[in-house]
């Protein structure tokens, strides 16, 4: 008994001590706390308060009657969703494209960063790097237009095909090419930008490791495999986890600008569907339900992969 009381008292005083320390800490570094305030307010106002609006997923939301005046329908929207044939198609497309992006698009900047790292002529390296960054600053509307033009009847791809005697193909209206085009155009646009973090991580690697490796007779390739890559792994893991949390969020802009009705069956994803049904046709409840569903999946994936990563002590939290 006495022991227990002692432990309790200890705990209590510990708590007090902690809060005391927090107050002290705030007093001491009040400027820093002040500086973080806008960020906190931002998250509360733009992330947490809108989160409350998710309740309309459980309502038959009527825009003129507001959340208070709209009837509650329980899980109807979700049941409708799961029974809705189009939704299955949309979900399958989203998952498949996400998977392809993860397999092909995610490693691309890593490889490119390793290649950049091997370029010894500084001017060349900087120039090439800048050239690779550039497409990132174009909007998808522009890139979409370029892709359509390149693959048009008179476009360069078909012109080359013609030179070799093949009939032109209208790639943008063929289901078979759609996902490939999405992945390739995505890599083209974002690969350079993606290298920035990796390059920064590479610079942080201690040069003495390379020196040691050289003494041991490792060539450039071996150095990359046995030094650079392993030391990059924590960065890769963190970026991978951040990526997996957004697994089903492919980015509306890209797909929307590449999609045509002929490729709906392979390219219509959650975001484009939500845009059509929600923003254009005003079905707010159904689309909120989809959004919620998407977030829950994202969270579950993030949690699972974080658990796995923590086993090697590299998780996000």
């Amino acid at each position, binding site marked *: 008994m006495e022991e227990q009381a002692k432990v309790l008292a200890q705990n209590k005083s510990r708590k007090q001590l902690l809060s005391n320390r927090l107050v002290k800490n705030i007093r001491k570094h009040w400027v820093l706390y002040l500086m973080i305030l806008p960020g906190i307010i931002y998250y509360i106002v733009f992330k947490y308060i809108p989160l409350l609006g998710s309740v309309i997923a459980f309502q038959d939301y009527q*825009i003129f009657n507001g959340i208070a005046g709209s009837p509650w329908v329980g899980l109807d929207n979700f049941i409708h969703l799961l029974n809705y044939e189009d939704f299955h198609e949309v979900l399958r497309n989203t998952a498949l494209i996400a998977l392809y992006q993860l397999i092909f698009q995610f490693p691309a900047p890593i490889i490119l960063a390793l290649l950049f790292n091997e370029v010894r002529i500084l001017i060349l390296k900087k120039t090439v790097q800048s050239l690779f960054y550039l497409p990132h600053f174009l909007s998808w509307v522009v890139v979409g237009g370029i892709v359509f033009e390149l693959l048009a009847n008179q476009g360069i791809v078909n012109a080359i095909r013609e030179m070799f005697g093949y009939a032109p193909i209208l790639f943008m*209206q063929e289901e078979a090419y759609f996902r490939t085009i999405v992945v390739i155009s995505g890599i083209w646009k974002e690969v350079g930008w993606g290298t920035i973090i990796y390059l920064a991580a590479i610079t942080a690697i201690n040069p003495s490791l390379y020196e040691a490796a050289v003494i041991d007779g490792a060539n450039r390739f071996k150095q990359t495999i046995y030094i650079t890559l392993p030391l990059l792994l924590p960065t890769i893991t963190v970026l991978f986890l951040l990526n997996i949390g957004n697994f089903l969020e492919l980015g509306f802009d890209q797909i929307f600008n590449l999609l*045509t*009705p002929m490729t*709906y069956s392979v390219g219509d994803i959650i975001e484009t569907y939500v845009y059509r049904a929600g923003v*254009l046709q005003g079905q707010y409840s159904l689309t909120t339900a989809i959004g919620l569903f998407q977030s829950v999946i994202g969270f579950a994936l993030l949690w699972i992969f974080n658990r796995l990563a923590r086993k090697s002590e590299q998780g996000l939290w």
Partner: protein
Amino acid sequence: MKKNYYVFMLAAFLMALLLISGCSSNEEASETPDESGETGNSEGSDEAAVVTVFKSHMGKGTKPDSSSEHLQYVKEKTGVEYELMTTPPGSDPAEYINLMIASEDFPDILRPIGGVEQTLINQGGALALDELLPKYAPNAWEKIPEEAWNIVRTASPDGKIYYIPKVYMIPERAALLRKDWLDAVGMEMPKTLEEYKEMLIAFRDQDPNGNGKQDELPTSGREFGRWMDHLFAMFGVAMWEGYPEWDIYNGEINYAGTSENMKAAIAFIRELYAEGLLDNETFLNKGDVWAAKVNNNLVGSWYHLPANLGEKITALREGNTEPYIVGLPLPEVEGFEGFITQKSMGEPEWIIPKASEENAINALKLLDFFYNPENEEFVTYGIEGMQHEVVDGEKVLLPSSDEKPLVLGMANFTTDETMKVRIENSFPEEEQQMITDIFEVSKADARRIAGDGMPSTVYEGYPDIQSHKLFQEYLTKIVIGEWPIEKFDEFVETWNQSGGEEVTKRVQEWYEKAK
């Protein structure tokens, strides 16, 4: 040293705060009437009321501000200032209007798009106009025929009038043909489907644009299978810019998209596509690409608005061709009776949100100005120097341009006579006959469809049926040859199962009521 650092930080923080508050607080200003009060305008003792009008799909021109002479004149006559609210360039009007409603940022009067009027009516967001209209907009009330008002009444569950309808007594659209191409290949106007196809083949092979290259696109359309209605019209399919409409099929009002006529039309279009007679990029053509093809002397037969041909003729002239465009009388197809779809009445033109009730009287006054016969002259010609100039004692309209302010109007009431005036005003003399002739051809083929004025409530709960998504997918895939024509039967079945049957039932009930 340390103090300086704190002061700097504080300043940075204040800046951030200012930025945040500055971005969020300029909302209210627009609702209240302008109080800055320009110096002139001494006679009206009261400040003029400001009515915000939302309208999308504006033509060429800049947004006029309140000092515009044109708006000042309207203000003088009505005591109301017309303030235009429109979509930014490149944005989707349906998206814009939904966001506007969601943020409760209502204009005083708006032109609904994409079926938004039904949301307003069903959720009590629209103002009933039965009593206000005869009182404050007597001219509009009188001018719009009773038939149109009756259609408007059927669009609401309580039988009230919630919007001012558009009235278009003549067909707006026509099947267009390059007569100079037809002459170049030495052929007569096609009378049957076979002759039409032969003409297209000649367009493809005989270089009617005379540039020595085989770059002609005998006929073309736009993405989603839109704006190629002429190819459907021949088979008696009710089509509205590529959206299948509702008309009498099998003795009852039915969706044109699932009719036998449609199947035959798609089979024909598929054939044209396979032989390169229909632009193979049709389903990838965005509006501007399509227009550029027509303007660059590449397309022989297409479907569009004859009243907007001016731009195309100018563009073709700039490319050193002298185009002669005629209406294509729909070629005969065995077993089908072709027609050009005409929707004359009941399409919503203006609706007043309940939230703007206070300003409704002013909004109606403004609206009535444009329907008032006394103002006809002003509505057509506007202000001298801005919209027209006087040549030999006659008023001549000036062409619109990107630099000049838009001419704001509100009436959408077109009859034979008003179109005649419009043609006379907007086309040079030598082209007027050409445009008039096109309308004559189109009028001869046009027919008002049974579904004219049908409210979009029938689609409630079935957005995919409303957006014609399924239809577009099957149409495009069958035409490009990815699917065989037999797939059409599967489409009919799927369409019925995914809500089409229920919607059809509602349409038939509505038709009984409205007939």
